[in-house]
């Protein structure tokens, strides 16, 4: 153990020989109290703190500023937008898009997570006992998660296209007529949800799989000695012992799904009409999706999303604390 630090240290001490004189008082100062070491800690954290203020706090503050003013493109450049208080929020809540977007967000999120989690868990259990090629196959499952979203989304858009899509061709072989997946208001949300489920399976699989690895094998051996079958083992061992990891997986899934813009925008642009518009897509469309940017209501919708993020942030913290307490 000691060989590693000394071998690193000796090469450094020759280099830093000239620096020993100033280093000695520095060491003495550190011993004087917690203050000096706090300064060191703060110095190392400074880049991050500056970064967070400039590139997180400032843009977020600008976003709140946008939502309480009446900004258009000209006011944007000149910076003389009129203060309107909560008018933009009132406008958003009264908008006919609001109930649709709310329902779509809830349905898209809930259905996506239910399927991602169920399929991810089933696959994780399947891959738990290793078999020939299991590691290679499990690695291949990561591919959808690593591809740029625009790649996956445009591939799904082409697969689901009405006349030339492979999906319609396959279900046509079973006697089902053409479905206008992306252009019919009845199916647009289903279509983007299918693509999003596919995107989320790898994430769920990987996390739940590593959660399963932490369950000791003896527990399963003991229960099979007691005559428990596979289903019984799943219900009485896997599910309860996996609960903390499952909770975090679902929460991270929620956060990710609420943020989704790319997939929906590329496949349907939230349409037809508002048929597949979620809050995040709505915000994007108001600000950047049309010829006439309407930043203020877009920022208002965005601020609602931030509030939701804060709530989930607290939830995440609670879950993590509980997990740490239990382990």
């Amino acid at each position, binding site marked *: 153990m000691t060989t590693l630090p*000394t071998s690193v240290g000796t090469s450094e*001490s020759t280099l830093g020989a000239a620096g020993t004189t100033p280093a000695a008082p520095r060491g003495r100062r550190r011993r004087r109290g917690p203050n000096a070491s706090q300064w060191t800690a703060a110095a190392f954290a400074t880049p991050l703190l500056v970064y967070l203020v400039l590139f997180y706090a400032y843009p977020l503050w600008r976003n709140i500023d946008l939502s309480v003013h009446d900004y258009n493109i000209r006011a944007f450049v000149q910076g003389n937008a009129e203060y309107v208080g909560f008018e933009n929020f009132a406008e958003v809540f009264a908008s006919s898009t609001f109930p649709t977007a709310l329902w779509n967000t809830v349905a898209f999120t809930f259905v996506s997570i239910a399927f991602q989690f169920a399929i991810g868990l089933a696959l994780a259990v399947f891959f738990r006992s290793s*078999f020939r090629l299991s590691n290679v196959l499990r690695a291949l499952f990561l591919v959808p*998660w690593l591809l740029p979203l625009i790649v996956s989304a*445009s591939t799904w858009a082409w697969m689901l296209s009405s006349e030339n899509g492979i999906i319609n061709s396959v279900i046509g072989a079973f006697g089902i007529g053409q479905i206008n997946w992306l252009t019919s208001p009845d199916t647009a949300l289903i279509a983007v949800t299918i693509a999003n489920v596919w995107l989320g399976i790898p994430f769920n699989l*990987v*996390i739940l799989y590593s959660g399963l690895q932490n369950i000791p094998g003896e527990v399963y051996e003991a229960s099979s000695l007691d005559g428990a079958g596979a289903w019984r083992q799943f219900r009485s061992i896997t599910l309860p012992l996996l609960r903390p*990891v499952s909770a975090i997986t679902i929460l991270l899934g929620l956060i990710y799904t609420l943020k989704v813009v790319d997939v929906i925008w590329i496949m349907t642009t939230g349409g037809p009409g508002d048929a597949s518009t979620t809050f995040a897509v709505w915000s994007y469309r108001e600000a950047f999706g049309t010829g006439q940017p309407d930043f203020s209501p877009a920022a208002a919708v965005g601020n609602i999303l931030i509030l939701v*993020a804060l709530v989930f942030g607290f939830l995440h913290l609670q879950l993590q604390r509980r997990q740490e307490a239990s382990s």
Partner: protein
Amino acid sequence: MTSTRPWWKTALGVLFTALMLFPVYWMVNVSLTQTKDLRASPPHWFPWEPTFEGYERVFAQQMPALGTSLIVGLGCVLLTIVVAAPAGYALAQLNLRGGKTLNFLLLVAQMIPAVVMSMGFYAIYVRLGLLNTVGGLIVADSTIAVPFGVLLYTAFMSGIPRELLQAARVDGAGPWRTFISVVVPVSRNSTVTVALFAFLWAWSDFIFASTLNRNGDLIPITLGIYNYIGNNTTQWNAIMATAVVASVPAAVLLVLAQRFVAAGVTAGAVKD
């Protein structure tokens, strides 16, 4: 041993993987299909007469976009590591006051939708004239990776034995020396994971690119694909060829750095 590893599981696993990867296969298949066969019914399941028209077009038109994405990705990696590694050290080993609050802020930061950030950045960049610049895009893209990077570094650096750092101090190394010559080399694996994800996220980013860099001379490859979809909806072989080329980094990383990928996905969700 073979009796505990039944062949039917392998067969089933191959089937599941094939189903899962079908869209990826389809992307490659369409990218090689001749234009006249794109609208064939039923669609061609296999590119019997492959064409490379699509790829020729990619290399003729999209090279600047690929270069831009590469620069943005590398810039994002650099910025993320420079900000995240020292902060991780401060949080993990130096008992930074307010560290818990900072951790919470980073968690919340990860949850803020990119579309919200993009509006804020847009408002700032309009004034500063940073719209449509590569630098502006690098900064915006790095906001996806920095909180993740800090949390990952903190988790790893907490595990560095105190004796190792004390030994460096005994040898006369100050905090900065200790950081550069002990902490950073020991945390090499974390750096690889952070770099990998920072690159991949910047490379894949669509939201910041489409909002902050939409009229730039140098557009990244994701916008290249997006503009393609908007402009000629008939040339899906060319669109899919671009998509295949844009997927190359992901494929390379999966082959070369699979264990780092898995480490990054589970970071923050599962305690080892």
